């Protein structure tokens, strides 16, 4: 019981800590921008505080709901998301920002259906996979096809927005879930082949993606053009050094870094809190992932295992992608840093995910080792 309570408490503590860190860094990095644009330097801080509180409430709510209940919701929830993703594409309903239709706008709040869809896909895949314990996974028609049917429509609807990053994340999720479930290697390699071919196709058919890719490979060559963002991010890390310039003392957030309070918040942490701050954040996320994996391994049933794995994998993947992007290890891609970056939908969904993890954890049996 001891290790169970450690994991449980750690999982409650980490998101709250990260939200707190996020609030500080959001205020530090956005106050000047907010003061200029909204005449309120705490504009983003206040909103994120509201989301944070909602997120924590969501987390505790989900924790109270026994997760097997989600099995019943799996299909309706999935259908609902297909509906939402379709509706957001209808002109006039979805809000267009920067050429992509990703948001529903409800007064001052906005909602991103793709975020919710990730959760829906995890639930439906977990449910479906948990039913195929007895070797069904080895057959294409039972083990592969249904899961493709769950994922591909969502994938296509998200690509249509277009939100290439989230779509690729879903494909990766499917791939990993199938791999864990024990799908034969031939199917997996075929799936990987098709996925990479379609990814290449999507990259080539959109000029800006090629441009992003080339500026990723050679950011310094075009430091004032397409490589500007990533070069500014490098500079932020470089300016921070080991200990950082001190909280609030960074200068890269002054319109050099693009959206310093959302996707590039780690760069601001790197500048103001230095390498130590970044290392701390990395370590906390790693602990989070390990806790999640532990829950997955020790889950009471297969549904819990898959569900926990899906949630922790997706959160971990987002984290790694965000960090890799701001450090120039991956091409620029709009992925927020979970819990830390400014953004309502993403925070709520992630907190719901943590709530589900906690719910699974409460049913765990840690004594049976292997």
């Amino acid at each position, binding site marked *: 019981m001891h290790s169970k309570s450690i994991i449980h408490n750690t999982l409650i503590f980490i998101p709250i800590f990260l939200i707190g860190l996020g609030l500080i860094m959001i205020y530090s990095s956005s106050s000047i921008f907010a003061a200029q644009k909204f005449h309120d330097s705490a504009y983003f801080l206040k909103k994120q505080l509201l989301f944070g509180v909602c997120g924590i409430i969501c987390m505790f709510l989900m924790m109270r709901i026994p997760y097997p209940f989600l099995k019943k919701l799996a299909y309706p929830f999935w259908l609902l998301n297909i509906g939402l993703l379709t509706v957001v594409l209808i002109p006039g309903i979805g809000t267009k920002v920067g050429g992509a239709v990703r948001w529903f706008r409800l007064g001052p709040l906005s909602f991103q259906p793709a975020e919710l869809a990730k959760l829906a896909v995890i639930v439906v895949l977990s449910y479906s996979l948990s039913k195929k314990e007895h070797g069904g996974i080895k057959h294409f028609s039972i083990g592969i096809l249904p899961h493709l049917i769950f994922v591909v429509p969502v994938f296509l609807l998200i690509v249509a927005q277009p939100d290439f990053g989230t779509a690729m994340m879903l494909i990766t999720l499917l791939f990993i879930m199938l791999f864990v479930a024990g799908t034969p290697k031939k199917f997996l390699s075929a799936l990987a082949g098709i996925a990479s071919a379609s990814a290449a196709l999507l990259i080539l058919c959109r000029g800006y993606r090629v441009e992003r890719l080339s500026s990723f490979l050679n950011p310094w060559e075009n430091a004032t053009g397409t490589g500007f963002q990533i070069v500014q991010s490098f500079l932020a890390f470089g300016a921070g050094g080991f200990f950082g310039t001190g909280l609030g003392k960074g200068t890269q957030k002054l319109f050099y870094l693009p959206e310093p309070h959302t996707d590039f918040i780690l760069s601001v942490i790197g500048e103001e809190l230095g*390498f130590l701050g970044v290392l701390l954040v990395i370590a906390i996320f790693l602990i989070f992932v390990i806790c999640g*994996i532990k829950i997955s391994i020790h889950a009471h049933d297969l549904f819990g295992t898959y569900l926990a794995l899906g949630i922790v994998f997706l959160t971990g993947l987002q984290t790694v992608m965000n960090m890799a992007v701001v450090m120039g290890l991956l091409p620029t891609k709009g992925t927020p840093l979970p819990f830390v970056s400014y953004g309502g939908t993403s925070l709520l969904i992630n907190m719901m995910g943590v709530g589900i993890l906690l719910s699974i954890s409460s049913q765990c049996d840690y004594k049976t080792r292997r």
Partner: protein
Amino acid sequence: MVKLRSRTELKKNIRLICFSFIVLFSIIAVRAYFLGVLRYGELSKRIQNQHKCKIALTPNRGTIYDRNHMELAVSIEVESLFARPHLMKDINDAAKKISSVLETPRSQILKKLNCKKKFVWIERKLNPSRAEKIKSFNIAGLGFVQESQRFYPNKELAGQVLGFAGMDSHGLEGLELEYDSVLKGRTRVMVVERDALGRHLFTEGLKTEDHSEGHDIILTIDKNIQYLAEKELQAAVSISRAKGGTAVVMDPWTGEILAMAIVPLFNPNQFLKSKPEIWRNRAVTDLFEPGSTFKSFLIASALEEKLIKSKDIFFCENGSYRVANRIIHDVHPFGWLSVKKILMHSSNIGASKISRQLGMELFYKYIRKFGFGSETQIQFPSEATGFVPLPYHCSEHTKSAIAFGQGISVTALQLATAYSAIANGGLLMQPSFVKKVLDSSGMVVQENASSFRSRVVSEKTMRAVKDMLKSVVREDGTGEKASVAGFTVAGKTGTSQKTEKRISGYSRKKIIASFAGFVPADRPRLTILVIIDEPEKMAFGGEIAAPVFSRIAQFALNYLHVPPDAPPEKLHSGWKETKIIFPENGQRG
């Protein structure tokens, strides 16, 4: 059994996922270390360059005053229009409005606005009414910068002496160029941080500790004498249809230049409107053959060496004298002439005979002592040295030609300085344009005390030469028209032929008429040199240059309250005969 095995495999796979996350996070940590710690120095240097920007603060350029603190060159604040095209909403509309005010084609303004730069000048130094009009449009992305513009309130007055300063307040010609660093002051550099929008955040203070505003300069020039000299010279140039003229007024005791007039006049406010050759201060930069005015130095040298006496007489060959295989002419034929009369009637033959007596080596020594063939060291750009042939390079003919001032070239400034040496009894003074340099609070930073460079000949010799020069301006001398009512004048006329490239010899038509002298003769206050370049009418120094000397002297002596030194009866006769009616509506403009 199947169930258990698949469960074990499942857990193994999940652990594999966990392991790959550990690897991925480690890679990211290493990358963070690489960026933040290993490349710290290089990246933080880059960031500083990006964030810091230097602003040069150019201090106001100092004022140039005349010797009585009258402004000759001042700096006024005007506004320059710039655009930041990336902040502009409607470039076409803005271009339309701007072009309507500036009267420049719209396409030209559009071209400037469409460039990719974040800052472009639209128009530098606008006149204030245009600037107001453009401000009233209230176009976003346009801005004004205060700049200082050089302004010469007296227009042409001393134009070539002052020179001018260009668009960025850099001296480009004349004293503006020579004293540029003094007038300009030290530019201060302010380092400010800026954000990505180019807005300045906070200053780190000024970088140069010993900053200074531009210094003011007080010249030796007297605005009134300068004005009169220019007016009289201009009148004489136009009446004689000459190409140009030069007049120098100097204080013989200090070497201070009181006036330096160059015709055609030049307005530095609009320097681009006149040809570059007009910009030159030809009294300092251009050479000419002095002609008979040079005879004074020959006689001074010979007297100093005691090779002749004032009362010696020379046979002037009745106006035609063969030296080597050339014939020297006098304007009027003379028989026997005393040294004094040789100077008075300006006999070339007499002069060449004296020079034979003196010998070229000695004469050369004195020519150099009088300051010819070397710079006067006046602080002015591109001063000419002049040309004095070495004795052993001279043919017999050249030797005798130098005696009457041909075959040698000098600047007007050298000649005026040398005449000042005769006036003050033998001291070669250091000529100067600048009296004082004042800092912005009016404290004297530098003061030019008058200094003499060397003693050329003894006072006694100079007294004898001065006596002879006085006779030149008497009734039957060549310089009669230089006389000034109430004052005794000492001086010498000069009429030299110009060399012409086309015929590689001396031109019969192109001459330089000049008069050099000082007044009052016994206690000189002014040395005045007047040179008329290529007059078509009245082409003799005594005819055209001497009256200009007289008029400048008349005015300046009155203006300086110099008491008359001549008996009153002379006052009347002297003035009547020199009267020339100049057109009063002068050509200035």
